């Protein structure tokens, strides 16, 4: 920033902005906890000079339900009704990571079929999460129609989840030792039918959104993330890949059966909101391909669950671990510490929004136009429940 541009910004004392509201140069407004788009319940304390953001502070705490504390008083199996609620749009990643951490501490290996079924649910959840996100991204820039198309397709994926697991939003399908059930009859045909519908909508979205002049003009250059920022701020997932870093846990440290699937890590260069939209859009197309690969290659027979001790009297050996997976928003991980009893001693969740919605957003918002702030938030794909577990 040039020094002469600095005039309209607050004075910096010890690196902190001193905002004198009595000077009438600045206006403080609160945005949220309800937002245009699908960013969830966080509040932004915005200081404006004209319509330009000069300072921003994220306030969280609207969704705090004390999940981590609750888990300390529940047995490992009972925690599954809690962990899925940590992220509403994509609960399966939580279930998988919690189950994988438990299995690792208990020394359990799961059958091959269970690995395929887990991967199938993870990819379906990723696609559902992206479909909801792109609706929010378009909505934040004034195109509500896109959300009508994509959220409808997400609903069809939720139908598939209902058929497979019995639950639409929260599935509790992945449990220690494998999954709760095999695929029902006719499920593969239903998946193929939904994927065809998703492909058709993605084609429409490509024309209507990604080639829209207004969308391109507003998203271009918005929220630029430099490569240096990525490690300093712990930026992960599509936000890091848009900055040109090929970081994808599915490829770098393959888990489940991702090493048997054919896909490449999609990276960009420009690292702004538009590039992040392109990256996520390509990942949606990739998701459809991955789901098709899984249903074609999945073994027809075999156990989907291995025998585990009585889960209500199951003492997990003492130890600690950290297990991660690639969610739609980036690295999702659980730190779990067992003291050898039936209850976890400590479970801590690492959600990608923990950094994206607080430290990163507060940095990127400076200098942004107020009208673009919602689009910036959505372009980081934040999900507040994972901040305040």
């Amino acid at each position: 920033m040039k020094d002469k541009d600095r005039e309209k910004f607050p004075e910096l004392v010890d690196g902190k902005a001193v905002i004198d509201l009595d000077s009438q140069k600045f206006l403080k407004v609160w945005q949220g906890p309800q937002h245009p788009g699908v960013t969830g319940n966080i509040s932004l304390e915005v200081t404006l000079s004209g319509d330009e953001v000069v300072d921003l502070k994220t306030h969280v705490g609207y969704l705090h339900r004390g999940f981590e504390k609750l888990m300390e008083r529940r047995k490992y199996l009972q925690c599954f009704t809690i962990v899925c609620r940590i992220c509403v749009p994509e609960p399966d990643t939580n279930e998988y990571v919690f189950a994988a951490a438990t299995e690792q501490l208990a020394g359990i290996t799961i059958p091959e079929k269970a690995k395929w079924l887990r991967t199938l649910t993870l990819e379906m959840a990723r696609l559902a999460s992206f479909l909801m996100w792109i609706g929010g991204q378009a909505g934040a820039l004034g195109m509500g129609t896109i959300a009508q198309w994509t959220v409808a397709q997400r609903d069809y994926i939720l139908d598939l989840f209902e058929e497979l697991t019995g639950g639409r939003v929260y599935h509790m399908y992945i449990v220690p030792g494998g999954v709760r059930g095999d695929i029902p009859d006719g499920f593969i045909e239903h998946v193929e039918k939904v994927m065809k519908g998703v492909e058709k909508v993605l084609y429409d979205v490509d024309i209507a959104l990604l080639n829209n002049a207004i969308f391109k003009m507003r998203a271009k250059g918005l929220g630029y993330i430099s490569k240096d920022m990525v490690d300093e701020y712990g930026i992960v997932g599509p936000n890091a890949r848009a900055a040109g870093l090929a970081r994808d846990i599915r490829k770098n440290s393959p888990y489940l059966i991702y090493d048997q699937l054919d896909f490449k890590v999609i990276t960009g260069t420009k690292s702004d909101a538009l590039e992040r939209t392109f990256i996520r859009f390509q990942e949606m197309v990739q998701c459809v391909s991955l789901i098709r690969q899984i249903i074609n290659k999945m073994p027809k027979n075999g156990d989907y669950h291995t025998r585990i001790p009585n889960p209500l009297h199951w003492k997990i050996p003492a130890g600690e671990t950290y297990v991660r997976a690639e969610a739609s928003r980036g690295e999702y991980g659980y730190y779990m510490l067992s003291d050898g009893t039936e209850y976890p001693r400590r479970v801590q969740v690492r959600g990608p929004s923990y950094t994206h919605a607080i430290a990163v957003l507060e940095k990127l918002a400076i200098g942004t136009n107020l009208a673009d702030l919602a689009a910036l938030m959505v372009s980081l794909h934040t999900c507040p429940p994972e901040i305040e577990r």
Partner: protein
Amino acid sequence: MNDILKRLSERFPVSNIVHQRENMVFVTLQKINSIPCISYLKEFEGFTHLVMLAAVDFIEDGIFQLTYILHNYKLHTDIGIRVKIEREHPVMESIHTLWAQARTYQQELKEMFGIDFPGSPGIDEPFLLEGWQNIPPMRKDFDTLKYSQETFFPRPGRKSYDPQKYMKQKLYPDKEPE
């Protein structure tokens, strides 16, 4: 990973090394050596990604265990640095100068466990809880049931039943209760 551990143990007194899996290891360090060790891992061994900063309350031993999990993107390995600090007046050196995102973790740990990180930006501001008057809620000695009974009151007209007796009464209404 073994080479890194060898170089690390030459420089710092690491103990209690646990190979959790092929590409993940946990080590314990004394409080005084921990931040120099984390800086060394970041600057010289390529552990540039701070995955998380977790705290565990070991009330029976009178200590908090802080676990810094770092990730190396080139080797795709993780290292967990365990640091044990006293539970009475817990203070730890801040790492916000190494990673800007660390201040959020530290702010949360101050609020939820009462662990102070002097110098960390916004450390005394509330993170999730507004106007919290009790002891930090993630500590093991915080009684959640007692807190909820003292703070919240049952809705008038609401009845609560013992599930076992209620279902027996509902399923077998003719049977005399035991």
